[in-house]
């Protein structure tokens, strides 16, 4: 598992990368009440705003962590946004991306580095 400074987690599954938000991010957001996911089969560039997530407190954007194509989205969290608080690093993944160049994953933090990042 890799982590971004935007509090996303990235998990490689073959030639796909699964993206979600960290437990820390979900706690900071508070109760999630709305999630808008991108359409599948769309090309996105790193830092494109691809997901809108709203909690009881505020709206936030989630940025594409990599260049690639969105190939699958998790409709279950649109139906029940509360899942994002219940299991942010498991069932409540956001989308899966097809990524050409997996080497960019090396730029992201590992778990230990992310832990340091959120405690600093």
């Amino acid at each position, binding site marked *: 598992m890799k982590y971004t400074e935007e509090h996303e987690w990235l998990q490689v599954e073959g030639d796909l990368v699964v993206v979600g938000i960290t437990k820390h991010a979900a706690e900071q957001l*508070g*109760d999630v*009440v*709305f999630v*808008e996911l991108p359409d599948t089969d769309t090309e996105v560039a790193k830092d494109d705003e691809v997901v*809108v997530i*709203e909690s*009881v*407190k*505020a*709206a936030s954007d989630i940025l594409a962590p990599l260049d690639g194509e969105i190939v699958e989205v998790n409709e279950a969290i*649109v139906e029940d*946004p*509360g899942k994002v608080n219940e299991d942010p690093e498991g069932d409540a993944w956001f989308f899966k991306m097809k990524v050409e160049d997996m080497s960019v994953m090396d730029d992201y933090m590992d778990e230990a580095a992310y832990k340091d990042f959120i405690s600093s």
Partner: protein
Amino acid sequence: MADDDLMKTVLFELHLELGAKMVPFAGYEMPVQYPMGVLKEHQHCRAQAGLFDVSHMGQVVLSGNDVALALESLVPVNVVGLGEGRQRYAFFTNEQGGIEDDLMIANRGDHLFVVVNAACKDADLALMKGALEPKGITVSLIEDRSLLALQGPGAEAALAALCPAVADMKFMDVATVSILGVECWVSRSGYTGEDGFEISVPNEKAVDLARALLADETVEPIGLGARDSLRLEAGLCLYGQDMDGGLNPVEASLTWAIQKVRRTGGDRAGGFPGAEVILAALDNGVDRQRVGLRPEGRAPMRRDVALFADAEGGEQIGFVTSGGFGPTVGGPVAMGIVADGLHTPGTQLWGDVRGKRMPVQVAELPFVPAGFKR
């Protein structure tokens, strides 16, 4: 304002002990939520009972001869006709007819007790002193009392366990009672749409009273986050959002709070700041007003979302003043100002959410039926 300058209520240490997340609010460090979280706190308050620290609000005693008549010079409300032991909603108006703050006025026999918003406390105090002291009225900010709100269908049972007399009170009654051996000023009112009480308690007993109420298994502490979603579902205005100095009470859909005696043709018509504008608005109507809004999708429409009459094109016809997710409604709810003619419940409007026009309907307020004990 730097965090160091923030004021603390008497309950500050208790909030920390209860695990509250504290935020700056109106110059105070206040609990926005407890470990339960905003959503569950909201639902708990609607289902059982919630305890709120509202000690940041301004408690003011007004006394002197003809104090009610004197206060009528600042509010378009019938204060003279407010019976002893009763409370009434009011607002201070300005010369343009706008609203400077909203407040509660209680007739406590030999004096009036008013509660004003924390953010407007200093301005309200200056306003009242400036206008009322020349009339011989004493204006005293009460700083030796805290203010707790206990709200929800379980509030009566929880408070009556400490003070059986409160069970006899009805909505908007006020009474002086003894709780934990000290004199408390209790009103049967609140800001959630639920039955409940606001309790003005001497500072030295405030923590004891909060602990005694929290010891009741039906009572949970509730933060500012849920306070906002509860009042929004109840259709209650937040000063600075749903009403302000640039909006008159008719535009703010608060005409119900202006009794006949203060309107054109009434025995004490006018005589408050901006009376000309407000009475004209009452007599002739206004070209915009506050309404409830129910977004049709799941996406909340928050404050400042622009409203349109059509799915595409056209001029902006209004804006959202407060909006978010309504946990009891189970979907997004909002209030906003819309042009006259588009204010009828059921009217289809469109709100610009992140560049996309999303459907929203004008809706009846409140979104959740009130649980008041009338």
